[in-house]
């Protein structure tokens, strides 16, 4: 009996020591490293129990009917808003009692008015958002209590809540005045930009998880492509001379490296796109009309080190994921020297980046799987919201205090939707 107890204690000690080893080696998969960002080792945090979210019941013309009109919204890269609502409706963090809620969610699909080509038109979005806010302000007291400071919205469009696809116009409009105090969950992130509010949560764009899973190839396929990129370099339709699209960075990549055998870059979209990414060491993620792109998600899932060419970009979950350690950041002015930069990275650094990318929690954090899985992007959003708790005293307004200007903004936005 005594021997058995000693054996048990010995085993328990072993378990403890193994759990504290930072770089662990799984038996048949790649060695990975733990990821800890500026907020700490938070990717695996469980938000359940740390916050409560109340989901407003909006009439279906704000969400379901729009989706019925165009089901393409479920698969394009702005689908995060739809899946977020579906996730929250069935999540344990949801509460039906608004009095005990820490955060309030307004499910309005502003990015679902699609052109025949599939691109969202943002012209009616400000009006839709405004109308939704007027609805909740008049039917529930919680908006007026804080003027939206404990509400969060998902705005995955090109420039977030500025609701325009063209950057100058978006800057000109600025964030919708009614959302000045709310927390925005958006894909756009650029430092010192009008359309990125302080305290916003950047999320990755939606990429179809099943489609990417079905294109996985065995890990021992040797990575033989040095740099890989598929996409436009010149947007001939909207910017024929070049220089506007991507601030000239993509065109610079093409002009400098189209003859370079190490760079596998072209505009053709092959059927083996996902497989090729898994055979590449570096994947370029340059900005387009907006600085973010689903390429980052694809690069992370397929283990290809992302080379981010977008000045001052804010990447998804930047406080939880140490992007500097994982990706390579290249200034737009340094694009002509991209090959020098990439070849001068020491191999140990490259191997470490690949180990970080191989971490399954990293890959999970970039995805929006259905049904939701622990550690995925939904949970990271909730973790981000939980980290902002408890709310500051200034969130709650004194009675009669009004901070938002309900008549600000272009006249066209004030029309009812």
């Amino acid at each position, binding site marked *: 009996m005594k021997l058995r107890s000693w054996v048990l204690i010995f085993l328990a000690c072993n378990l403890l020591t193994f759990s504290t080893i930072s770089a662990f080696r799984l038996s048949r998969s790649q060695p990975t490293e733990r990821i800890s960002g500026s907020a700490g080792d938070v990717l695996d945090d469980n938000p359940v129990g740390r916050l409560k979210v109340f989901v407003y019941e909006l009439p279906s013309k704000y969400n379901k009917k729009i989706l019925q009109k165009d089901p393409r919204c479920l698969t394009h890269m702005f689908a995060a808003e739809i899946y977020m609502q579906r996730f929250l409706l069935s999540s344990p963090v949801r509460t039906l009692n608004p009095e005990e809620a820490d955060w309030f969610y307004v499910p309005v699909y502003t990015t679902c008015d699609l052109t025949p080509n599939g691109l969202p038109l943002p012209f009616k979005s400000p009006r839709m958002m405004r109308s939704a806010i007027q609805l909740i302000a008049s039917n529930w007291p919680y908006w007026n209590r804080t003027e939206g400071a404990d509400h969060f919205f998902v705005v995955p469009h090109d420039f977030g809540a500025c609701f325009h696809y063209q950057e100058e116009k978006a800057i000109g409009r600025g964030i919708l005045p009614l959302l000045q105090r709310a927390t925005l969950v958006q894909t756009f992130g650029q430092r010192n930009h009008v359309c990125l509010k302080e305290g916003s949560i950047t999320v990755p764009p939606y990429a179809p998880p099943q489609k990417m899973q079905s294109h996985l190839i065995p890990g021992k396929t040797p990575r033989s492509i040095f740099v890989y990129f598929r996409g436009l370099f010149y947007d001939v339709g909207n910017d024929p001379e070049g220089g*506007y699209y991507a601030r000239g960075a993509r065109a610079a990549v093409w*002009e400098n490296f189209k003859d370079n*055998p190490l760079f596998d870059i072209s505009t053709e979209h092959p059927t083996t796109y996902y497989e090729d990414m898994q055979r590449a060491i570096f994947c370029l993620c340059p900005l387009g009309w907006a600085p973010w792109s689903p390429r980052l998600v694809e690069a992370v899932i397929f283990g290809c080190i992302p080379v981010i060419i977008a000045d001052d970009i804010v990447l998804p979950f930047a406080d939880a994921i140490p992007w500097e350690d994982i990706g390579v950041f290249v200034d737009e002015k340094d694009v002509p020297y991209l*090959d020098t930069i990439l070849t001068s*990275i020491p191999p140990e650094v490259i191997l470490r980046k690949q180990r970080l990318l191989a971490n399954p929690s990293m890959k999970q954090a970039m995805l929006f799987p259905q049904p939701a899985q622990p550690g995925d992007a939904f949970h990271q959003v909730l973790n981000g919201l939980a980290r902002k708790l408890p709310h500051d005293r200034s969130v709650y307004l004194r009675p009669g205090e009004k901070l938002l200007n309900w008549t600000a903004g272009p006249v066209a936005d004030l029309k009812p939707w």
Partner: protein
Amino acid sequence: MKLSALHQSYLNRRRSPLDSSVDAPSKSFLAVFWLVLHCLCCLISLLLGFRFSRLVFFFLVSTPSSSNLYSPPFRPDLPPPRIDLTPSNATTAEAKTSSSRVVVGRHGILIRPWPHPDPVEVMKAHRIIERVQREQKAVFGAGAKGSRTVIAVTPTYVRTFQALHLNGVMHSLMLVPYDVVWIVVEAGGVSNETASIVGKSGVRVIHVGFDQRMPNTWEDRGKVEVLMRLRALRVVKEEKLDGVVMFADDSNMHSMEFFDEIQNVKWFGAVSVGILAHSGNAEEMVMSMDKRREMEEEESSSLSSLPVQGPACNATDKLIGWHVFNTLPYAGKSAVYIDDVAAVLPQKLEWCGFVLNSRILWDEAESKPEWVKEFGLLNENEGVESPLSLLNDPSMVEPLGSCGRQVLLWWLRVEARADSKFPPGWVIDPPLEITVAAKRTPWPDVPPEPPTKKKDQMSLSQGNNNVVVIPKHQQQQQQRSSKVRKPKRRSKRNKHEAKPTDTATQVSSSTKHHQERN
């Protein structure tokens, strides 16, 4: 679908040449004016066939560009030409009051001077790629399962094509990422030829001599090869080599995945072998291609065109039998002698398709399964045909390569004529001056010509490769030189001074000939 950003720039440009004192012409007037102008430009472009509007504005605006100070939010001058060494950013735009170095607007496309790749960097990139791939192999390939030594057994003998075949096998083994022990069994005893080839490999080699000489018929050769392989297995037993034994016949071709796959074998495994039963006769090849096309047109070709020998599995991936090479189409037409111009057929079950754990051969029956015969008690004279004779129960063989679906190596038998000659070590020393014709050449022996006409005939022979004139006094020299026993092309000093150039041409044309034959 995105509105052209330049529409706005046109708007601004239109304002600036207008009198700036006109503060704000009403928006509607401007819009209408712009619309009319745009339509006009479109019509002109249709007529002319190029974008007229931009050309006009380029000429209009580019001259007074310095005075264009109309700013927000971007500078409305046109971009500089593409080949640009310095960026020409929009200077005035600011996104926010806090300093942002990212400005919206037209940027120049930066192009580095001399953009061709720097070779030093290309080398660095390749080193990075190689390091990454090595890491991948370590993680997913060899290191993951634990690498076992590969023990390769190769029966060989000295002949013309030995260098060709043995170099192929040697380079395959040199690329194997695991430890390799190469047991080379040589018929006719250990020779310097083989030793010099094999010594360049860099892997551990056990060079064993076998007393019999290799016979001239394929059937007998197969039998001797079996004995040689058993001899090698005895070496494995005596030296207690640990690892996976595979049979690398010297004319076979192995893929690198084969070596990765055989690491999975527990005791005795079988892989699929692609059989290249090729006759070397070009006409027959063409005929068989036509025949095959006819066959495919008549019947649906459910057969793959490459015959494969290997394990056969049922739907649950269990071994139920063997795929064997179909010898019926070749009945009576197969090669008997080593240098016959006919299809060379494999045995019923080739040794190369089997791999075994070397512990099967060891003496002590430690963890050896019962269905394995004791190797030490094997009687070779009973006629061991295939490795299955080493087993009591052939159904315990493990099928490898996703149950035989992957063809991991190819079987081929190609040999030169039995009487073909080659320089020892493939080194021609001293250098050739004249050649000795091989026996049984198809060209006729032509009587010698007087020296003056020789040059013309040499030039003739240059054009027509099939006829080489050998003057008679050289033939006499041949007869003299035939006394020399070494199978080497002798060079002989010739008295005729005009000879060197002629012999050079003769050498070249006759070497060409020899290469054709061999």
